[in-house]
């Protein structure tokens, strides 16, 4: 029973007990372990790390278990945990050119230095349900020919284009410019690209996917080519003030996507390709691609384009990308609102009474029961 008026405390306690029971499900089925989730639902874990904005596979797996598989709820658990962590500073810039590569593809060249490396991908799989997986023991897996990740001679495609002068320079911020951080300063507009990328990296995969899709269908066409998608491990370094040099904190897996888009150029500078950039934790390729397309669309002003579509509207995109915010506000409509509803009830009743009174004045033969506002003919 939904108790809005009295006995709230008891109702909440009971709801929590019931939730715990439903989360566990049938106790004759073994409980999931966090390691099983981390190992076998790795893409869910990656999404939760992305949107939860914290790289920790174990915690993300735990959050998925606790959230009964609801990934937005899991990301929310991670965000709430993340806020309580002490901050020691900012890491050095990741160098994705030095990535230990597990997958690397380019749609712009048939072959390129370092080659194409398909890696673990659904891309060319037939989407046929594999009923063998329903068995308790899946059986032995086929041996993989070469599983060693590559980290030699894998220049980024955008760097190859840059060498030829065909790609716009990477508009890096000045070293003196502090990089923004929307978790420390509230977002204000206009927002620069550093803040936009941070916002998109934490943003909802579905929202970015739809926005990117809309740009392909003519709502701000940016003509993207997948310059490169690379997935693998990069080292995270931190400059330790007291030691005076960089310390390696560990390695994280990221997916980087660089879209190559149509041209910019002017009387002063020759035509060049333009960039859209996406970088996310884990193998979350769909989101990295969507992010790079949305990033490119949001750059319309700087590239002298016209604003015609929602995907280009910085304030609209950045204000609504965060699913933790979105889900909170949409779901808060479940909270009791009866005080405000009472005020609305009162007004609509008065307005109806006035409406009927006015009509009766015009047409004295119309019969209305003012008490209920119901017309007699009904």
């Amino acid at each position: 029973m939904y108790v809005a008026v009295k006995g709230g405390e008891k109702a909440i306690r009971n709801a929590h007990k019931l939730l715990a029971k439903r989360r566990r499900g049938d106790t004759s089925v073994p409980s999931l372990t966090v390691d099983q989730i981390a190992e076998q639902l790795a893409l869910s874990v990656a999404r939760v790390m992305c949107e939860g904005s914290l790289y920790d596979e174990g915690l993300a797996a735990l959050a998925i278990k606790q959230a009964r598989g609801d990934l937005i709820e899991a990301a929310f658990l991670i965000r709430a945990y993340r806020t309580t962590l002490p901050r020691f500073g900012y890491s050095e810039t990741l160098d994705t050119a030095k990535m230990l590569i597990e997958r690397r593809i380019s749609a712009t060249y048939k072959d390129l230095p370092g080659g194409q490396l398909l890696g673990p991908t659904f891309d060319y799989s037939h989407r046929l349900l594999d009923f063998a997986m329903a068995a308790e023991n899946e059986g032995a897996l086929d041996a993989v020919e070469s599983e060693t990740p590559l980290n030699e001679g894998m220049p980024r495609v955008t760097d190859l284009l840059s060498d030829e002068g065909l790609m716009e320079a990477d508009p890096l911020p000045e070293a003196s410019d502090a990089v923004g951080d929307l978790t420390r300063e509230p977002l204000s507009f206009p927002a620069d690209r550093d803040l936009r990328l941070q916002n998109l990296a934490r943003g909802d995969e579905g929202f970015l996917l739809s926005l990117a899709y809309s740009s392909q269908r003519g709502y701000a066409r940016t003509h993207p080519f997948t310059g490169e998608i690379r997935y693998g491990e990069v080292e995270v370094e931190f400059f330790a003030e007291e030691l005076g040099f960089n310390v390696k904190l560990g390695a994280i897996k990221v997916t980087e996507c660089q879209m190559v888009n149509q041209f910019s150029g002017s009387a002063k500078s020759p035509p060049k390709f333009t960039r859209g950039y996406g970088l996310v934790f884990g193998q979350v390729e769909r989101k990295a691609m969507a992010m790079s397309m949305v990033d490119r669309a949001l750059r319309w002003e700087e590239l002298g384009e016209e604003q015609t579509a929602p995907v280009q509207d910085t304030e609209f995109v950045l204000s609504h990308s965060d699913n933790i915010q979105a889900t909170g506000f949409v779901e808060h409509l479940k909270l009791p609102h009866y005080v405000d509803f009472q005020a609305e009830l009162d007004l609509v009743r008065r307005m109806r009474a006035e409406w009927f009174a006015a009509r009766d004045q015009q047409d004295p033969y119309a019969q209305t029961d003012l008490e209920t506002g119901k017309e007699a003919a009904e």
Partner: protein
Amino acid sequence: MTLPVSKSIAPDEGSYNFAYLDEQTKRMIRRAILKGIAIPGYQVPFASREMPMPYGWGTGGVQVTAAILGADDTLKVIDQGSDDTTNAVAIRGFFEKTAGVATTTSTEDASIIQTRHRIPEMALNSNQILVFQVPIPEPLRFLEPRETETRKMHALEEYGLMHVKLYEDIAKNGHIATTYAYPVEVNGRYVMDPSPTPKFDNPKIDNMEALQLYGAGREKRIYAIPPYTKVKSLDFDDYPFEVQSFDKPCGLCNAEGVYLDEVILDDKGGRMFVCSDSDHCEERRANGHLGPMAADPAATLLSGGTQEKGQ
């Protein structure tokens, strides 16, 4: 060399800072509160943190309360005027757990009152602080969705759009169709959203003795009304601001001039109107005030808080 990514989870240390927020976050919020007080009605941006409850469920109010709360405070939390509504219970429990402060349902005994959608009926005093949970702090938001635009409008004190909207309501409906979150002008300068309290409560925020703090977590804004500040509900000479009045007293405690909830008793049109401010109602009944339906079986169910609380 690469280090293996650890999948091991450290056991929860289980100890959060007093009132959950870390000290740096509290300082940041405290600075925003001081700015809000110095510029009454102006929405101060602050770096709202993710809280362990969803955005939209009072994270702004919770952060403000956490930043001001001290060990000797007595906290009251209400939602819809009642201490026992689900979200009020959840937030009160949060502070009992993380700050260990005393809590109360008595308006009089509280030093800090966090509220959603109501202001207590009893006049608050100068030792009290009223903290509002705010969903959309921008009063102009439904007229102009862009923050870049509304910020300019506040800077230029350009509130014509709001007056046009209210006047269009009158032309269309014969009434201003805003019944809650009714916009006010603070100290003759900023137009402000008093949070979604029914406009019945607007007169209470004018010249209030207690300090009022407003927190919007998802929208990352804090604002304030210092004590004894002139707060005017927007209106027109020919359509002066007026509050809703109820033609019956509270069915339980016979109070008049208070905000009432309509409770549907059956599917045959049976209704009962009872105080939205549950503490006010209980206090009155304890002092012997009885309403026309106090003896009705339905009343026992509605006022059954004592019964539930005893368990």
